[in-house]
């Protein structure tokens, strides 16, 4: 019936190690997707518009900056900046998410039905498969990140976390940066590396 009490520092150290081991594990998941990209595309890539991906990349990078700002704020007892930073991060993350779904994947509404724009389709051979597979897997992580940030925001609103005790914030922050890190690898692999292959007949 007795509880095992560890000092919070010890537990945070273990948590941090566990979190990073989780990142190492996830790296193999995303690494596998990158391998699939280079296996199937080689040194080519589909010829896609460049502006939208650059824009959403900028959004994600900015969100990462605000996440960092929020974490620094709570570590320095600045609750207002902390709460505001989390909200901005979640908002920018959501913009990124929608950007991938709507602009990048090219869904539009025409005559009351959802159709793909004049754009690459999920079923467009390996180009569609890898593009939608990689962005989709990343978007799934973004979505989970947004949910976690909102949870942390809600807890912060209730007065949780302080400069001494904010492991939850730190974990959320490094998870969000990790999502950014994945995109740092995915974005060039999908849009910059390789020779652009123009679309076939449509």
């Amino acid at each position: 019936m007795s509880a095992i009490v560890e000092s919070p520092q010890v537990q945070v150290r273990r948590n941090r190690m566990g979190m990073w081991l989780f990142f190492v594990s996830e790296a193999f998941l995303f690494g596998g997707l990158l391998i699939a990209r280079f296996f199937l595309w080689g040194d080519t890539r589909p010829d896609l518009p460049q502006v939208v991906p650059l824009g959403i990349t900028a959004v994600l990078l900015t969100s990462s900056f605000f996440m960092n700002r929020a974490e620094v704020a709570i570590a320095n007892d600045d609750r207002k900046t902390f709460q505001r930073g989390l909200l901005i991060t979640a908002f920018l993350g959501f913009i990124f998410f929608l950007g991938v779904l709507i602009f990048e994947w090219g869904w539009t509404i025409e005559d009351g039905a959802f159709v793909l724009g004049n754009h690459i389709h999920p079923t467009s051979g390996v180009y569609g498969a890898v593009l939608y597979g990689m962005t989709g897997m990343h978007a799934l992580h973004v979505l989970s990140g947004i949910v976690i940030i909102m949870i942390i925001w809600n807890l912060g609103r209730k007065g949780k976390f302080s400069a001494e005790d904010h492991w939850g914030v730190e974990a959320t922050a490094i998870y969000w940066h990790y999502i950014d890190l994945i995109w740092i690898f995915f974005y060039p692999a999908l849009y910059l590396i390789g020779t652009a292959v123009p679309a076939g007949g449509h």
Partner: protein
Amino acid sequence: MRFFKTGLVKGILVGLLWWLIGFMLVEVIRVAMGLPAAWDPNVPAGPVAGQNALQWIVAGGLAAYEPAMVVAGIFFVIGFMLGVGTMSDWLKWVRGIDTPMHHGPKEGDPGWFRYFGADYSHKVIGLQYGVTAVILLMFAGTLALIFRVELANPELQLSLFGANPEVQGTLNWFNTLVSAHGMIMIGSILLGVGAMSNYLVPLMIGANDMAFPRLNSFAFWINVPGALLLVTAIFIGGWNTGWTGYPPLSAQAPIGVQYFFIGVFFIGMSSILGSLNIIVTTLTMRARGMTMFRMPIFVWAAFSTALIQLTATQLIGLSFLMVLIQRILGLGFFNPGFPDITVIASSQLWEGGGNPILFQHLFWFYSHPAVYVFILPGLGIISELLPVFSRKPLFGYKWIALSSMAIALVGFLVWAHHMFVSGMNTYLRVPFMLSTLLVAVPTGVKFFSWLGTLWGGRIDLKTPMLFTLGAISVFLIGGLTGPPLGTVTTDLQLHDTYYVVGHFHATMFGGFVFPFFAALYYWFPKFSGRQYNERLGVIHFALMTPAFWVMSLGQMLAGTRGMRRRVADYDPAWGIDGVQLAVSIAAFIIAFSVLLMVINLLWSSRRAPRAVANPWRSRGLEWQIPSPVPELSYATAPVVVGEPYDYGLPGSTYVQLAPAMTGGD
């Protein structure tokens, strides 16, 4: 009935509810989008004339429901995890409620109650893992017995589940049984590995629990819906792809393959989370004075295993996920010709180009190291038990410890030896042959060190020791039959034959099953407080070991003569009828002996005499505390002052259980 209030039952009920929600969600969205729902009369959803429901399912009738079935399967797992209660602390934390760590059964619940629900004690979780592993082992073994009956004679005999033996239905069932036997056995082995790691590692390093007890509970319970989905897959059409699930075959297989994918995905998730826990525990929670090279050798094995599981497992999840979404969304990762499963028929952009060989690379990048996940803990058990029963130090402790790490690392570089004839780039064959053969070097170090440990000891042939020696002999067969498969030249003949089956079963029995049974007998007094029946244990060994030799060698002989893997029939002209019959009989003997063990342990846990605290006179940390282990394993922090295996050195001690020490870490 209190049983119906357990987490397990609640999990299944809530899981089924969520299954229904997931199914309806997809159908409602389909209807809202103006698409025909699954029950629409225009969708060919029901059995046609002359078919019963099972025949309809076997013929792929459920395919119309596929997206709904997939989403429902995933929802089932989520619902199960919510219902079983293992996430309740996290959900409370999300709502801002403090959740102090609580150990021990809830007030007013009987002692057995906690074993059927979420409990955070690693000792409970270890036993949960172990019991689930044995149940799955017996289930998958039964499947093997069914198809061994078919294989005992040439020609097709069995008429399974109403399928007409005249037509292809029987063959589909046969393939499903073979696939299910393979994958459920693998799940069982993973759970068995989890049982040993979870129960033993904290005890052996002098910690009171794992680093993340809640995560530990989560990692166990997610296996249960995973295993349930795997079993369900057999009955919703099955899957005729083998446990490897190679596309394009798995992209065209019956719908059971989807539940197979989902089940494996979640069992893999359990591997990842569990191994993460083991690594952090091993690195940060050792008792004072226990340096890395003073850890019990099993902890080294569990640690190397966890490193493989943590990283490689993602790849099998990914590869199965890719086939899963290829099936329901038409993402053509593995389809070169792009058959007509596309949802958007008008798409003519960038057609085709998929490559089935990519799947094999991703798949084997996990599934080869997975073999070391299965055997390394077993080899650790062998190294752990030999000194105790020989009354001698472990010969070459550091070499054995580092050879585990070496096997783990080299294991990452050998995956393509499963693909020598797969059509991958031919120049890759030679480097992968070399790296494959290199695995023999650290494995050999282990063998010779075991012999050195035995030499000049006082060998006590108790049941655990018998199984340890049996494990060495069986693993020797498995190891020695490896090089003919590792060298490409001979692999051209032996690849995908029954020779591979024989080799694989020898490594699995020698590397996992025998050591696992040894561990069950050895630590039985520790977790039950009672002594098993020695005579039944010896009979179990005497039946199982010769039967296994016959089975494994018979399989190899059949394979070299021309018997292929995963076939229901063979050519009588090869002269392997007698061999096949012998293999089938041996399989039944093995099954009977395992049943004997289960009966022995079940009976002994209730009726057998109480065991003394340290019946094996072991120096291990876990034997210095009472049996069964109290709720708080180490009320006083143990201090390690010596080497773990100094048997025969007068006056040496391994560990001091100091009176009332404070601190830790």
